[in-house]
């Protein structure tokens, strides 16, 4: 189990391509985040939890679908840590497993309306399914 935990941690760090140890725990990401109040775990926690290997907790949290991918945290991080990349990596660690897609094709029609742009559907698929 601990091996699995370690492997997951490595996968997420490799996918994000960022060293979480660069974080100085200033919390500017969470100060900047427009989705803060919607999230169970906040941007700075994503970084420290990845560092601590708590990947499963992140994968099981709704927080990974609350990130708006607006890159405010990426833009403002003084240490180049990119919390959004960790969130994406945690999400990918989950949806790359078979049957773990967050968004399933059959759910789509119910969500459509005649004004919704293609972009919304395409991006939702990109972000939430594999």
């Amino acid at each position, binding site marked *: 189990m601990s091996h699995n935990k370690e492997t997951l941690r490595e996968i997420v760090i*490799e*996918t*994000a*391509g960022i060293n979480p140890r660069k974080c100085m725990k200033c919390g500017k990401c969470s100060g900047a985040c*427009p*989705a803060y109040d*919607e999230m169970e775990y906040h941007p700075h926690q994503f970084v420290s939890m990845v560092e601590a290997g708590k990947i499963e907790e992140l994968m099981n949290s709704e927080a990974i*679908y*609350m990130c*708006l*991918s*607006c*890159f*405010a945290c*990426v*833009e403002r991080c003084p240490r180049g840590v*990119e919390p*959004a*990349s960790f969130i*994406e*990596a945690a999400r*990918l660690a989950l949806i790359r497993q078979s049957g773990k897609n967050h*968004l399933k094709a059959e759910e789509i029609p119910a*969500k459509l*309306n005649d*004004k*919704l*742009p*293609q*972009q*919304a*559907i*395409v*991006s*939702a698929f*990109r*972000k939430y399914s594999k």
Partner: protein
Amino acid sequence: MTFSYYPGCTLKTKGKDLETYAIKSAEVLGVTMEELEDWQCCGAVYPMAKNEIATKLSSVRALVAARDKGQDLLTLCSACHHVIKRVNNDMANDQNVQLKANNYMALDVPYTGETTVIHYLEMLRDRVGFDNLKKAVVNPLKGVKIAAYYGCMLLRPSKTMAFDDAENPTIMEDFIKAIGATPVVYPYRNECCGGYVAMENNAYATKKCNTICTSAKEMGADMIITACPLCMYNLDANTTENNLPVLYFTQLLARALGVEEDAQ
């Protein structure tokens, strides 16, 4: 002035207006937009993961096509611009992506990020020039107070996008001045509208939209302009307080240039 032009999925369907006004206005300004043949959807989301390659290939194809024509690649939709520009940056600087993408595509001449990706607004600023645009305006939008909504995609991450100062951009305000209107600066013009959750979680998107529209309205705006079809939809459909009319910037451009009607 001729550019290779990448429209993207939405501009051919729900976001038609953004494109029609843009093309019509470009003609007035002496800019030809040559739509790429056989372009594919960029995917609308830049794949941040370092080990994603396949999802970047459609952008690479567009970039290569522009390179082979010897033209700069013009974009209009914020999302397409974001994705293509960042993929281009990877092709220039990320050896892993560069190698794998080139291996996969087996091009005659390998692609290493040579194409310049330029957004329509950048084209107006850097190639046409806002001063020249001002001269071309026949129908200045005097007295109209306009709040520019930038969103996320055009500005961030600024190191790669190099579009404008990500925290205090001026390009759209300068555009508004050029077409004779009055820009309204408000603090949430670069804060996310929640576009990605618009489909799944209306209530959440509404919170974000309300903050933006309220702020713009409090600062005295009559309307909001944007360059992104998703922001446009979201701000229009999901705002519940202090609604303001939301328009594509290209529509106002066409209006100022006197070709709004023609475009219809």
